């Protein structure tokens, strides 16, 4: 479970999947995708690390997790803690949670995707969740100030975890502009006849 990534991995193996989950149209629920865009703008990742905004995918998570040695999820979490709190959960804690009733294709979520991969034979050997407690998840894009204030801490948690695995993440000297398209102000760019 622990140790440097290269140990015991086949050549070219040891993929690390960093995924941001959440709905960008629902306020703080877009925290995961927001952090993903900021990570991509501010850091350079080695080829073995994929950093992806996946929205709210249900079982469509599987192809992104399949074959990854390590999965790092950034998401909102429901906890009895103040909004903006960032908490890191490890695989065992996560997997202990009960599974939900199945009424729609959204109900199989992260945990069910992991279960299915394991039954098929290839789950990631390590799963980490970096979660933030949301303040506002109402209709409309845009993070609350509180959630925005937690972005740096969540990014640091991801980078630190990758570092503990021996994955080198380089901070860009000139950060790129983060592609937070859903927070773009309402502008009209069209031409008219």
């Amino acid at each position, binding site marked *: 479970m622990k140790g440097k990534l290269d140990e015991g991995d086949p050549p070219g193996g040891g993929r690390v999947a960093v995924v941001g*989950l*959440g*709905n*960008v*149209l*629902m306020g703080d*629920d877009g925290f995961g995708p927001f952090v993903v865009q900021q990570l991509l703008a501010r850091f350079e990742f080695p080829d073995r690390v994929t950093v992806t905004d*996946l*929205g*709210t*995918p*249900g*079982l*469509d998570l*599987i192809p992104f997790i*399949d074959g990854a040695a390590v999965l790092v999820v950034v*998401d*909102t*979490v*429901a*906890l009895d803690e103040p909004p903006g709190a960032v908490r890191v*959960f490890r695989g065992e*804690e*996560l*997997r*202990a*949670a*009960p*599974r*939900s*009733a*199945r*009424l*729609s*294709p*959204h*109900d*199989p*979520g992260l945990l069910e995707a992991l*279960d*299915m991969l394991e*039954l*098929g*034979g290839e789950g990631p050997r390590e799963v980490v*969740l970096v*979660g933030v407690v*949301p303040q506002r*998840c109402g*209709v*409309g*894009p845009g993070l609350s100030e509180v959630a925005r204030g937690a972005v740096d801490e969540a990014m640091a948690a991801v980078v630190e975890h990758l570092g503990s695995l021996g994955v080198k993440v380089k901070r860009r000297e000139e950060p790129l502009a983060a592609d937070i*398209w*859903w927070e773009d102000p309402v*502008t*009209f*760019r*069209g*031409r*008219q*006849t």
Partner: protein
Amino acid sequence: MSKRIVIDPITRIEGHLRIDVEVEGGAVRDAWSSGQMWRGIETILKGRDPRDAWLFTQRICGVCTTVHAITSVRAVENALGIEIPLNAQLIRNIIIAAHCLHDHIVHFYQLSALDWVDVVSALKADPDKAAALAESLSAWPRNSKHEMRAVKAKLAEFVERGQLGIFANGYWGHPAMKLPAEVNLLAVAHYLQALEYQKIANQVVTLLGSKTPNIQNLAVGGVANAINLDNPATLNMDKLYKIKGLLEQAAAFVQQVYLIDLAAVAAMYADWLPYGKGVTNYLAVPDLPLDRAGKVFDLPGGTIFNADLGTVKEIKSFDDPYFRDNVSESIARAWYDGDWDRHPWEEDTVPKYTDFNPDGKYSWVKAPRFQGKPMQVGPLAQVLVGYALGHEPIKRWADAVLETAGSLAKTKLSPAILHSTLGRHAARGIRAAVMSELALKHWQLLVENIGKGDTDIFTPWQYPRGEIRGFGFHEAPRGTLSHWVVIRDGKIANYQAVVPSTWNAGPRDAKGQKGPYEACLVGNPIADAERPLEVLRTVHSFDPCLACAIHTLDPTGRELSRVRTL
């Protein structure tokens, strides 16, 4: 003495589908379907550039991202009155077909098979007998003794470690579970194989759409897939042949595994054929256009009323007034301000939550109506419309499934049995088989068109001044999806999405007409009110997808769902 059962998952902050049923004498007497959240996509889109709408609308759902993206660009193109290049049409079609294959496979195996398959019973199966049975039904190469033994061993290991969480709420050992152990084992084996093949189908979406969930290759006016057969960075022969190979693999799984399993489940649960009929008005829209304008299609659309295939009326084009003028939504029983029934272009969305009141307002879902009538949408609607219109592939595959199921059940099955819970599953498989053929046909058409030297992928256009209105539709995996847009001086003035699950899961209307979920539950048997498996069977047969909203993980393991009997 009647009893109320409430099935209310509370997995997300705002929850989603809630089903209330009143049970009396071992059967459902009345039912209410309630969406427990509201989507305000029009609030988000007002004032934006219509060219951006598809990026936003595909985020209203995390599962059906592709379908909202496609429908949105179609709606804006309809408003502008533009045709798109044939390549763009065909590339979109291949994405639509591949996404559909992925979605139908996942729905049957990962989301609903556990309503019929008793996973734990598979441990009692004789793997050699399971393999022999499977090989007698299908030429599929992965039904061997070796495969069945391996799956049984893997499952035993899982059960031993107490990891049955994956099958949570699977209701194993329930009195309504009736498959022999060997069939259960076979189903578990195919459950695992399905995970591979749904992924294979979805890889096609990724190859053309750049990414899924949330494809990136669309534009109002076409697609952004540059075509140059000699350029490794564009759509070229290498990528096209990769796509073909993937589609062939997915097609083989659908035709040799999925359809056979469906027929076996239907045959062995033949006592279920009378249940789940409900609303027998059907609506499907045509899809997979073969021309630039959207006037000739490979999948048929139309309406059927009162289960009478003779009433079929075709929807013929992307601009057909028969569809455009007859859709409305009622908020009489939904948590919005007012009690109107309006055309989507005229709607507003002013939420006004009051408590769950089965005699008043009780849902966030509006009640869509066609000519004032509730309609059932989904694969069954398209299969019935196609059957009624004599659509060759639909008729051929439907007859094949009915014949296989009939021979296993030792009876003759007519298309009339399709008006049922099991019929909805059968229709989804039939549609998947038709799609698996059409995906390859449209691949061929694309290659031939490129072979003629046509590499056009985009039609340039400009916004006119003043107001224009448009609608776009798509026959999505869950049924008829339509987006409606009003554009004023190039900006979005109104936007409504009428999604399949609102047609099916919508509440009653001002006249008290029940929505399809509600109507089809009435009369369902209930063997055990504490474990209402039969309700789930019927609701799952629609492939519900209501959660187009929120996703939050609860790592502390507090109550995630509840089944209450009152």
